[in-house]
């Protein structure tokens, strides 16, 4: 029973969101709530609650019904297309997360080893996250296409993975640095008194100590990697994934309002899968998870 409780509560949460959606759609004002509107002037004022019509808020059951229908005679049902797109996006996000983990951890090791490196690198790590993704993504795609022209084939998914890793490495670098720094001075001194070198201290003390910091950081990184992959797909125009699907379905949003929710559900599931894989990693590393810190 104790095991099942989180699952039951999770499922209830999903049902509650759907119920809230339908409740607002049923009870809310048809034209939503707008503050400071001028009478007779289209689109004036500041909207704080959405309109409730089918165009703006399709019924939850319509969204699921739409998942079962195709694009026309002889076309596959929507859920099948969404599943295929999820595979593409999940693959890019996973690769991005792996790249981000490697780069972020390497940076953390370097910064832990040398204060000079930390002073030199950490500000840039933070500044890197202020560069808007939509400015950064086309540059990666362009560099990729130039490498491609040089003879080495650079596929679009690699650009997407690199952009996803750009978001994912940041929490890893910061979290891992804190984790590697977390052992108390007396523990470090103890190992030094045993004559342990840098490598031994790292293996026996710093790496195990970093786990409680790394896991929450990885959870953030996994979510960032998924968001990064979806945005990067849109930005560089890579076909096949959820990002492209969302932008293309947005064109049909008025004529087929339930359609765009298909890939949105897909993105939610991909995010859950990414977070779930980090939870699995946590199971593997459970011996080191005493007193997990909040990143």
């Amino acid at each position, binding site marked *: 029973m104790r095991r099942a409780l989180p699952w039951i509560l999770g499922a209830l949460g999903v049902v509650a969101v759907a119920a809230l959606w339908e409740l607002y759609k049923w009870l809310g004002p048809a034209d939503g709530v707008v503050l400071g509107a001028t009478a007779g002037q289209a689109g004036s004022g500041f909207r704080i609650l959405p309109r409730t019509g089918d165009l703006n808020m399709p019924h939850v059951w319509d969204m699921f019904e739409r998942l079962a229908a195709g694009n026309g005679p002889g076309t596959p049902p929507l859920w099948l297309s969404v599943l295929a797109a999820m595979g593409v996006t999940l693959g890019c996000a996973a690769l991005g997360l792996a790249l981000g983990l490697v780069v972020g951890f390497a940076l953390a090791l370097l910064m832990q080893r040398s204060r000079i490196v930390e002073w030199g690198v950490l500000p840039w790590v933070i500044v890197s996250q202020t560069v808007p993704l939509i400015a950064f993504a086309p540059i990666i795609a362009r560099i990729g296409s130039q490498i491609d022209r040089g003879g080495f084939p650079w596929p679009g998914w690699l650009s997407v993975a690199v952009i996803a890793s750009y978001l994912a490495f940041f929490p890893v670098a910061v979290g891992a640095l804190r984790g590697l720094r977390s052992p108390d001075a007396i523990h470090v001194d103890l190992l030094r008194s045993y004559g342990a070198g840098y490598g031994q201290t790292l293996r026996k003390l710093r790496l195990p100590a970093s786990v409680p910091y790394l896991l929450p950081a990885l959870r953030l990184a996994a979510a960032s990697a998924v968001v990064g992959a979806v945005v990067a797909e849109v930005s560089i*125009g890579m076909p096949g*994934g959820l990002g492209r699907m969302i932008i293309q379905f947005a064109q049909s949003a008025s*004529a*087929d309002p339930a359609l765009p929710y298909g890939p949105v559900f897909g993105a939610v599931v991909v995010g859950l899968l990414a977070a779930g894989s980090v939870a699995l990693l946590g199971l593997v590393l459970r011996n080191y998870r005493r007193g997990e810190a909040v990143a």
Partner: protein
Amino acid sequence: MRHSTRRGLLAASTAATAAAALALAGCSPSAPAPGPSGDVTNPGFEPLTSIRLQLQWLPQAQFAGYYVAQEKGFFQEEGFTDVEIVPSGGDIVPQDALLAGDVDFAIAWVPKVLGSIESTGTELTDIAQVYQTSGTTQVSFKSNPVPTVADFEGKRIGSWGFGNEWEIFAAMAAEGLDASTVSITTQGFDMSALLNGDVDAAQAMTYNELAQLFETVNPATGKLYGPDDVDIVFYEDTQGAMLQDAIWADTARLAEDPAYADAAVRFLKAVVKGWAYTNEHVEEAATIAYDAAVAGGGYPVGPVHQLWQANEVNKLIWDGGDFGVVDANAWARTVDGALTAINQDGLHLITKEPPASAYDNQYILAALAALKADGFVVPTSYTPIQVELTEGGR
């Protein structure tokens, strides 16, 4: 089959094309002569066999002619072994991709490229004006009518922005209206801004958003919206109309690289064949475009929508003149509009005439001449079909 296929006679066709280009270059004073130094049997360069074409949006029937040329092997017939059609739809700006050398040719609207040419000081050449007329409209409901440009003042006018808004300002400038009195509202890629009443008149392409509107169920009647429910301002009927989908090439490369100039003419031959096929087999062309979009990992609006689109773009392409030849009057109208238009922030699109190299008809004329020599008949007009739209274009 009235296309003369000449597979295996690549060298001959290349030489014939080059000769035709050379002959035409003689009567075109503005541009440098492309092609070889006159030796017809030995062109003096290695012909390009692999090229990339940048589209300005996601794969759909708007670009049917290129996908048909791909599918039907028209590019192979002109000596290309590998033609890649690169979709946009993200942050890829076609003219920028062309200037960066990522692609060899690009599809883009004329006013947007004129803006790029002036702002960056670079040179691009319109080598074929595929759409001869403007497909932009401003659509409003009869219940809140905005039937003419003169009615724009004081209204909320929707536009996608990103350079798609200049026809609005050009049309208003031509009528002496003040752009600062309209509030331009950025609308999404669907028609919900109009359906929700967030704008009084929404921007819509005849071949895309207008169909999206007519694929939407009117909640009051339970039936699809139809032409009787709306007022439509066709920019083609105003002074604001601007030339749209054109094929652009790198000006400097055309002048310096005879292989590129030769490839431009061969590429245009294949494109003409592709669009001619789209004219004569509109249903098959729409299917080809839909299938290509799906095969490329895209999620296009359904097959019925694509058929509407192919039918509508055919109307824009085949206006009675020669395919792809820039009409000097339409060009002048576009440039005038671009010069006079002032947006709601008081900004101009361009402030001086574009360079003479901004368009050059010699390549498309050479392609048409070579096709004629091959016995290929290029249509000039199009007989539209009736497309019955369905909910959601499915």
